[in-house]
Structures are given as structure tokens and as C-alpha cells.
């Protein structure tokens, strides 16, 4: 092994400039590959922030408007989901897949606390919602079964609105995870925990604050929760509900999900005297298939980036191959000598292949290292900044780095590429006939 490296070093040492110039192309290829994949990851991560917190085995169903006439009724009719739909969803009919069904009902209200207030959407909900949406309760608790049973007037507020009620409410992004936020206008610090146990006024009713949820800038931060039963009694419109959500199991493929949705849609549509295949009468948001599609998109993006990166690398590989051809030509006489004194064709081939792989791998790793440094710089600069879109703070890149898997993948690529680059020149070298090579100068 040491002998092989000595030979390679001797060869490279004689052609420093040439080797470095060739190596640069390889470094550049790998650098681009790593930076592209890192940026791609960052972009994907930015897209997926928030959505990854949600349980993926739920479907949300909402009412829509019919798009075709059916059963003597014209199209364009508004469909409202009702308690009956909840019962249907939870019935024997879908028991094979449906686990738990909850419905929500809500309305826009103003929440008052002393002189301060905010406008928000009160959503009557069940305790199960916390699990489904992965709602993070920072202080206090979420709605519990007792609230539901006793129709208690309690609310769970998001952190930023709690701050508003307390006179804080700094919108500084740096404060979003902080318990104590600094209010730039009034200059006082507020502790949202002090709000727990206090009563806020919603309309003519007093609600006790029992919990504070984490608010993030990606989702609706003026939505807050109260027990379903309470909201239904106060604001409900008879049997109507806003939407229903259920968890399911045993639907592992896109096809299975589609088949289930079709069957489910038909059943619900018929309850509302809409055509069974009317895709607009009710809306179904299947987070599982959405997630599948997201993953698919992620894979496509990543594949596209790999292809671009590899094509960039190809230029470098062709360069290495070219240089190895020149090397073989220059060393023909030497190979003749080696063969005369007993070098087998394979030992000559090995020499060229090893040199090719070494050059590719060495400069490739330099490129990879620089690429990873560039990713880190990207993370520290662009990755930390956000951009404001329609009053919402959106991160452009989140954690734009590559993992160990990419580094390993790139290593395999380098070795394969180096072998590939050396293969043709090495074959040429191995096929040199000794008497002709000895004649060459």
C-alpha cells in the first residue's frame, strides 16, 4: 500500500501545477454539489417548519358547495357539516380505519382583559385536538374532559395574544420563545403566566384562562381554544358544525387513501343529497397523502440537485481522465521498462487507477470541506434571517447543511468517479506492448 502511494506521490510531484488545475475542477464539482444540497435542504426545511409538528394520520373534513345537480337539487348549493356527519364518520361503516372523530365549531370574537383586548377566533374543541395538531402548551393545561362534560367556560390562549392582553405583545421575533418579553412601547416586562387563572371577557361571558400555548409565526396566532360543548351552546347554529377531524389507521398507500376518501365522500355526500362523486360538496384534507406528496417533492428536489451537482462534477472527471491520458502517454517508455522487468498489465493499470482515484478523492474532499464550510456560513447568515411576507415572518433557509449520509454518498461518488476517470487511460497503459514502449522516448 505504501509503495502504491509512494509511486503516486512521485508522479504527482512531477506535475504539480497540472494536477492542481485538474484537481480544482473536481473540487469545484463537489463544492457545488454540497452547497446545492445544503441550500436545497435549507429550503425544504423552511417549507416544512411547522407542518412537521402535525400528526400525519388525520383527515379534516369541511363543508363546500355542490358542483353538480343531484336528486332534483341544483348545483351551487352550500353544504354544512352536521352532528350527523360526525356520527356517520364514527359509525360501523368506517370502523375499519377511523379511530377517533372530533368536531369543531367556532366564531370570531373579541377578547377583553381590563382595558386591553384582541380580536380572535374562538374554536370549540376537544382534548384530543392537542394530540392531533401537536399543540404545545407552554403553561397551564389544555382543555380536558371535565371542561367538555361540564360545559366550563375556560380558554387556552396563544402566548402572543396573552402578551397583548397584559400590555406586552412585543412582536420582536427574538422574543417568540422567551417567557419574559421586552415591550418596546411601554417598556414593561410581562409574564404571561400571571394570566392563568384570570378571567377574560368574551362578549357577555367571562372565561377563565387555563393555559397558554406556544404561538409561532407560521400558523394562525389569533386562534384560541375553548371546550367544544361550551362554544356550541353559546355560539352554535343548531346541528351545524364547522369541520370535523378524525384519525385513521391502516391506510398506508396513496391508492388506499384515495379509495377510502372516495367511499367516505360518497357516504357523506349522500347524507346531504349531493352526488356521491361530487368533489366539491365537501372538502377533505388528508394530511397523510399531503405528507406523502411533500416527501415526494422533497425527493424530486433532492434528486434534481444531485443531478445538477453530478453534471458539474462530470467536467472535473473528464479533466482528470484527460490528464491521466497525458500521463500515460508521457510514461509509455517507463511502463515499457516496468513490463520488461516483470510488471503485469494489472499492476500498471492499478498504478494509473490509484493515481486517478487519489487525485479525485483528495481534491474532492477539499471541495467537500469547503462546501460544508460554505453551508455553515450560509446557516449563520441567510439561515438566521427571515423575510416578511404579508405580515408573517418566514425563514428563507432553515439549517441549510448536509448530513453524514450526503458526505458518505459523495465519497462513494468520488471513488466511482475517480475509477471511471482512470479506467480508459489505465487500460491504455496496460495494453502498451513492451518492445514498442521501450522504443518510445
Amino acid at each position, binding site marked *: 500500500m505504501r509503495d502504491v502511494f509512494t509511486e503516486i506521490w512521485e508522479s504527482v510531484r512531477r506535475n504539480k501545477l497540472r494536477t492542481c488545475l485538474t484537481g480544482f475542477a473536481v473540487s469545484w464539482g463537489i463544492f457545488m454539489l454540497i452547497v446545492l444540497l445544503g441550500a436545497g435542504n435549507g429550503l425544504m426545511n423552511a417549507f416544512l417548519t411547522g407542518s412537521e409538528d402535525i400528526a400525519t394520520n388525520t383527515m379534516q373534513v369541511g363543508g363546500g358547495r355542490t358542483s353538480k345537480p343531484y336528486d332534483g337539487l341544483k348545483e351551487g348549493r352550500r353544504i354544512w357539516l352536521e352532528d350527523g356527519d360526525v356520527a356517520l364518520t364514527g359509525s360501523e361503516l368506517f370502523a375499519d380505519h377511523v379511530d377517533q372523530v372530533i368536531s369543531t365549531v367556532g366564531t370570531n370574537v373579541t377578547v377583553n382583559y381590563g382595558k386591553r383586548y384582541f380580536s380572535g377566533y374562538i374554536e370549540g374543541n376537544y382534548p384530543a385536538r392537542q394530540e392531533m395538531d401537536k399543540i404545545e402548551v407552554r403553561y397551564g393545561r389544555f382543555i380536558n374532559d371535565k371542561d367538555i362534560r361540564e360545559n366550563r367556560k375556560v380558554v387556552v390562549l396563544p402566548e402572543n395574544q396573552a402578551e397583548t392582553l397584559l400590555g406586552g405583545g412585543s412582536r420582536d421575533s427574538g422574543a417568540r420563545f422567551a417567557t419574559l418579553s421586552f415591550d418596546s412601547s411601554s417598556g414593561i416586562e410581562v409574564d404571561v403566566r400571571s394570566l392563568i387563572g384570570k378571567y377574560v371577557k368574551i362578549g357577555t361571558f367571562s372565561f377563565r384562562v387555563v393555559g397558554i400555548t406556544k404561538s409561532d409565526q407560521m400558523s394562525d396566532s389569533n386562534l384560541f381554544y375553548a371546550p367544544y360543548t361550551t362554544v356550541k351552546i353559546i355560539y352554535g347554529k343548531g346541528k351545524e358544525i364547522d369541520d370535523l377531524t378524525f384519525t385513521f389507521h391502516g391506510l398506508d398507500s396513496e391508492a388506499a387513501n384515495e379509495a377510502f376518501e372516495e367511499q367516505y365522500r360518497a357516504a357523506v355526500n349522500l347524507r346531504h343529497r349531493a352526488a356521491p362523486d361530487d368533489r366539491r360538496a365537501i372538502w377533505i384534507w388528508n394530511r397523510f397523502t399531503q405528507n406523502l406528496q411533500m416527501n415526494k417533492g422533497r425527493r424530486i428536489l433532492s434528486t434534481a440537485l444531485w443531478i445538477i451537482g453530478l453534471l458539474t462534477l462530470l467536467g472535473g472527471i473528464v479533466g482528470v481522465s484527460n490528464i491521466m491520458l497525458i500521463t500515460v502517454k508521457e510514461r509509455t517508455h*517507463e511502463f515499457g521498462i*516496468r513490463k*520488461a*522487468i*516483470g510488471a503485469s498489465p494489472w499492476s500498471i493499470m492499478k498504478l494509473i487507477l490509484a493515481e486517478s482515484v487519489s487525485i479525485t478523492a483528495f481534491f474532492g474532499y477539499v471541495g467537500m470541506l469547503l462546501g460544508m464550510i460554505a453551508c455553515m456560513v450560509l446557516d449563520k447568515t441567510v439561515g438566521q434571517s427571515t423575510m416578511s411576507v404579508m405580515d408573517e415572518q418566514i425563514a428563507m433557509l432553515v439549517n441549510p447543511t448536509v448530513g453524514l449520509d450526503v458526505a458518505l454518498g459523495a465519497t462513494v461518488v468520488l471513488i466511482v468517479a475517480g475509477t471511471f476517470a482512470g479506467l480508459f487511460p489505465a487500460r491504455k497503459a496496460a495494453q502498451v506492448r*513492451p518492445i514498442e514502449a*521501450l522504443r518510445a522516448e
Partner: protein
Amino acid sequence: MLIELKDVNKTYNNGQPLHVLKGINLDIDRGEFVSIMGASGSGKSTLLNILGILDNYDTGEYYIDGKLIKNLSEKQAADYRNRMIGFIFQSYNLIGFKTAVENVELPLFYQGVARKKRHQMAMEYLDRLGLADWATHYPNEMSGGQKQRVAIARALITRPQIVLADEPTGALDSKTSVEIMELLQQLNREEQMTIIVVTHESGVANATNKIVHIKDGIIGQIEDNREHQASAFGTTTIMK
């Protein structure tokens, strides 16, 4: 017989077919010191290439130590060259970016001998040829005679059955030529090394014990030269 050639024919087919060797029959025994003489174009270099398994022949048979050398794979040929034959070339054919000792080591490298062992052996051989002080020098730092002695060390290090020398003094002055030939004579005498020299210089041929004359691809006269009286210019000089 160490070397047996039976009706060996060789034709080059580069455009005009050229029948270079027209039925060569030659036996060389172990420990012989033979020169093959002939004008350029006589086929002597082709014969040497065939003897050295660097080239193939078309018909006939070639045995080394009873082994038929025919239709070998490249790998086999390389192995036989490595173990049975030592080459000495007119232009030394040392590898320029390797030091003297590294050049001498190279055949052992292809035998898979360990690094330390082969270095030690190479130093031994260089020492015997009086070049121990030059071991770490590169070929371009040495004189022609020194380079040829390095090449001889490289040819000897595998303890080959046959040493083939192709115009070994062709690039040397007459004084160095005499030294090199004396060295080969000494090797033949003291170690019973079988040496075959190809040359067109009568002085070089005169240093050997048997002279094979080749002309137009046919072996002519085989001269017994144990008295070293073949050269018209005396027995101890080489006319340049």
C-alpha cells in the same frame, strides 16, 4: 540445455510482410557466455526480443529450461520475464525519477518482496558493483558506466537464469565498454551466469566465449571463441 530454439520463424506484417527470422535453431547451455552478432536488419534484435519473451514468434518452438514459451498471456509473460530473465539495454532504461537503489529494487517489488528485504538486497548488489555510495543518486547524476552498472545490478537481483544484453556498450566509450564487458565476463566465470549479448561490435563479441553470427534471419557460423582471438584489434580493446 537451458535454451532451445527449434525452427523459429517470425514475420512482421506492417504493410509489406517482412520475414525476419527464417527458421532459427539454436541451443545454449547453462553457464555459456554467448554473443549474437550481425549487421543491422539481420534479425538479431528480433531474436533477442523473442529470447526475452518481449515478442512472440510465429512458428517453431522455444524452450527455457524445458518450458515451452509460446502463446503466453501477458501476465504469464511478465512473470517469466521477472523470474527467469535479466535485461541489460543499450540505453540503460533506468527510471529517471527513481534513485539507483529504487531502480534496482523494482524487479523485487513485482515479485512482492517486502520493502526492507528488497532494499537490503538492492544495496548488496550495488555494493558488489561498487556503487554503494551512489545508491541514493538519480540516474541523471551518474555517468554512463555507472548507469549501466546499476542496470546490471537490476538485471541480477532476481537471480535470473539468463541475462540478455542488447548492445550493452553501445552508448559507452571504449574504456568503459571494456570495464562492462569484463564485469560480464567475471559474472559468467564466477557465478556461472548464462549471458547472451547482442552486438555488432567485434570487440564486444570477442569478449564472449561463443559467437553466433546471424545474417538475413538465418544463423550462419557459430564460432568457438574461448581463446578470444576473434577480434582483429586485439583481445583487450573494443574498437569504437
